[in-house]
């Protein structure tokens, strides 16, 4: 390599790098003020630009969830799926996508029948740059700095998102606002609240990956184990719950009632608000709620009595599924979306899952769970690809075709025989299918979540009913999808610190009184500022 090559690293590039460094958060606690550009937060709900919600009615669910604000449920995959798209969405030119994945990577294009067929159906060769989800923010930060975002990119969690979108993403308002979205009927079918996180200063910058109720956390129980002991998957108050845990714990059999500390479940019994709550004109963090000390007393009791698995605070997420699956911990707190993985890890055929709804701590009624975030992220279209925006939106529209359509069946299960076989009329992935379909499509755009559990007969209905029972009264987060700069910069660290204190208190390493001090530190360390920014964003969204 010659020195001429080295000179390619020009002064301008270095300056750009330094700028990008600031973007990636290395600049620490710089203030936003006086930076120019639109430092506006996302004024989510502004009526004028919101895409119209047009529900897709082409497929009739077995159990309709709309009126309870929960996903539709299906017992079987529709026998003759409808075709939702008439012509391939692509424009023939390559589509490059940057997103993350939670599964092993697929074989390369030449060896991947699914990918080849996918390109044919899209009408454009699609290349996906995948990154394990835990590393995505770093990949995203460097891709922003190097201007290598592809045509479509999942927006990572880096500071100064509004400025970033303004500089790098296509303004989609003209294509998606109001009735314009009808041109993309499957994007119009995405739940309304999901769009909050994509709207910044009256401009739409992306397409959400919707979640909502399905991401709410609840207490799973192994109904078969409970039944064997003559117990029921319901509790009336705190004492009832502690008693249930006691009954389910059997140290001689190496069985502990809870796979992990049921922190959220106990908080739900005290109606502690979902992350933030409105108080007059401002928002207040759930951390400041007055019942935390009582909550901790209960959790400490569960821990010291040995009802919580000793490895509850170490190890990996997967261990929870294993402990639940082999019955060594018949209770675990997890999201409703985790249901299929619990069915998969169940070793005994008799294993049954039931949800234990939280009661009020004093037995005076029902407790309230926390409603999951409306979206887990959103994808934007590169400003450089603005000329192709219609083809790219059509591509996303194709990816958002809902459950019950041919396109959905192909996207999630590939081709018949090669990638899936039909068992009782339901598609089941073959090993080759599982390995080839992992193109990260569900993190580019996706239809609304559907409850479909072919793994075990009748479970779709069980999950649907459990959600119907708990979700309509779930506490929502008033600032979900809104943007706070300080929250992006300092939020993760502050949350880590609070989680650490929570764990320490439950395990008795710190007294319950340490909570108040920790909250005070949280407030002064950035919490107050986050609250202030969310208050402003909330006000602007109305």
């Amino acid at each position, binding site marked *: 390599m010659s020195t001429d090559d080295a000179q390619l*690293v020009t002064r301008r590039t270095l300056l750009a790098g330094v700028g990008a460094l600031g973007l990636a958060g290395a600049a620490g606690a710089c203030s936003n003020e006086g930076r120019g550009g639109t430092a506006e937060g996302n004024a989510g709900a502004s009526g004028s630009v919101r895409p119209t919600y047009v529900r897709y009615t082409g497929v009739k669910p077995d159990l309709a969830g709309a009126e309870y604000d929960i996903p539709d449920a299906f017992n079987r995959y529709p026998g003759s799926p409808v075709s939702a798209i008439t012509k391939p969405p692509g424009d023939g030119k390559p589509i490059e996508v940057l997103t993350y994945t939670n599964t092993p990577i697929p074989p*390369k294009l030449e060896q991947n029948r699914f990918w080849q067929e996918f390109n044919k159906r899209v009408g454009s060769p699609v290349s996906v740059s995948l990154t394990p989800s835990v590393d995505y923010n770093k990949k995203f930060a460097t891709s922003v700095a190097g201007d290598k975002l592809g045509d479509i990119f999942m927006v990572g969690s880096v500071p100064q998102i509004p400025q970033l979108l303004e500089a790098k993403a296509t303004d989609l308002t003209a294509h998606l606002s109001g009735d314009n979205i009808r041109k993309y009927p499957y994007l119009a079918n995405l739940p309304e609240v999901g769009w909050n996180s994509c709207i910044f200063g009256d401009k739409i910058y992306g397409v959400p990956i919707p979640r909502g109720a399905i991401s709410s956390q609840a207490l799973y129980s192994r109904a078969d184990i409970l039944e064997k002991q003559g117990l029921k998957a319901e509790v009336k108050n705190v004492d009832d719950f502690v008693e249930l845990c006691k009954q389910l714990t059997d140290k001689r059999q190496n069985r502990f009632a809870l796979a992990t500390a049921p922190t959220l479940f106990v908080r739900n019994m005290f109606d502690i608000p979902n992350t933030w709550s409105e108080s007059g004109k401002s928002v207040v963090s759930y951390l400041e709620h007055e019942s935390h000390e009582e909550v901790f007393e209960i959790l400490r009791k569960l821990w010291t009595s040995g009802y919580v698995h000793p490895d509850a605070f170490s190890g990996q997420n997967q*261990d929870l599924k294993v402990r639940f699956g082999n019955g060594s911990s018949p209770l675990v707190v997890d999201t409703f979306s985790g249901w299929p993985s619990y069915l998969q890890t169940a070793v005994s055929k008799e294993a049954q899952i039931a949800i234990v709804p939280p009661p009020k701590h004093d037995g005076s009624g029902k407790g309230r769970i926390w409603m999951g975030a409306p979206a887990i992220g959103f994808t934007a279209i590169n400003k450089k690809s603005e000329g192709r925006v219609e083809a790219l939106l059509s591509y996303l529209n194709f990816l958002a075709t809902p459950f019950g359509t041919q396109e959905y069946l192909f996207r999630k299960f590939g081709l018949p025989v090669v990638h899936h076989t039909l068992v009782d009329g339901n598609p089941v992935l073959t090993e080759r299918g599982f390995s080839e379909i992992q193109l990260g499509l569900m993190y580019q755009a996706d239809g609304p979540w559907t409850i479909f559990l072919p793994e075990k007969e009748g479970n779709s209905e069980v999950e649907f009913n459990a959600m119907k029972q708990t979700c309509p009264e779930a506490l929502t987060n008033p600032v979900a999808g809104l943007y706070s700069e300080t929250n992006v910069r300092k939020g993760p660290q502050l949350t880590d610190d609070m989680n650490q204190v929570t764990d320490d208190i439950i395990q008795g390493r710190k007294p319950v009184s340490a909570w108040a001090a920790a909250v005070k530190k949280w407030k002064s360390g950035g919490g107050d500022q986050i609250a202030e920014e969310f208050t402003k964003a909330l006000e602007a969204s109305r």
Partner: protein
Amino acid sequence: MSRVDQLTEGKRRQVLVGGMPMPGRPERIGKAVFLTIICGLVVFPFIGVISTSLATPEEVIRAGGFVMLPTHGIDLSAYRSILSGGTVTQALVVSAFITVVGTAIALLLTCTLGWALSRRGTFGNKALLLLVLISLLFNPGLIPSYLVVQQFGLLNSLWSVILPVCVSAFNVIVVRAYFIGLPSEVIDSARIDGASEWKLFWYIGLPLSKAVVAVIGLFYGVGYWNSFFGALLYLNDSSKWPLQLVLRTYVVNGVEIGAQDLGGAGEALPPQTSIQMAILMISVVPILCVYPFIQRHFAKGVLTGAVKG
């Protein structure tokens, strides 16, 4: 045991081991027990990994995550499933390429630089050494590194994983110290016989420094074999990914308890533990095979450099 001497001292025959009197039986038994326990502690997790990779998924879950001895016979399905798709075998080839080529380039650059810095009177010797030392103290950071790689046109090429890390300042210092320690008489006599600087390095310096070259070769080799972060940033095409990054996509679901908000990691079905362990075996075994051949140089190589630095 390097040397056993027997000497008669008074009436009692005393056995000397390496110049030291051999300890009594209880002490030897104590040491044996202690060393067995330590070895057991080291070997135990390996046995767990091997057994789990050979166990059926049901057995793994029944056992709570790890199987120490598979009771239902050996099940190779985990290995079959990861080797059948072609992704892992290809990643193995990529990793082997990166390791072999990377180590060769790294050794060449490190040894030549170490030689130049060890010779008095090299042009810019002090300044160059200072630059090397500075790179020990300061890290360029994520984004500047990325931009440099991008400007050199290396993105999405395997060279992006090899070149940015092919000179490690620590190894340069170790090699330089070793070269300084070589007897100057040998080098001087070679020079009198008319050897050029290159010949001095190639025919005198390097052959006398096999130990240190073997050691830093192992450092580089293991470093390249284990590296995944560069590939994560620079390689967009996942068919070019090395084994360790592919392995990461298998275990990404195993994020820590409580970290549920990381991109919905809990949504995907976790890969079976036996598959994770099988892929772990595939990534560890090649290095384990190389290690014994280089190990004998290990202590010598590092210590010599360190003491005479």
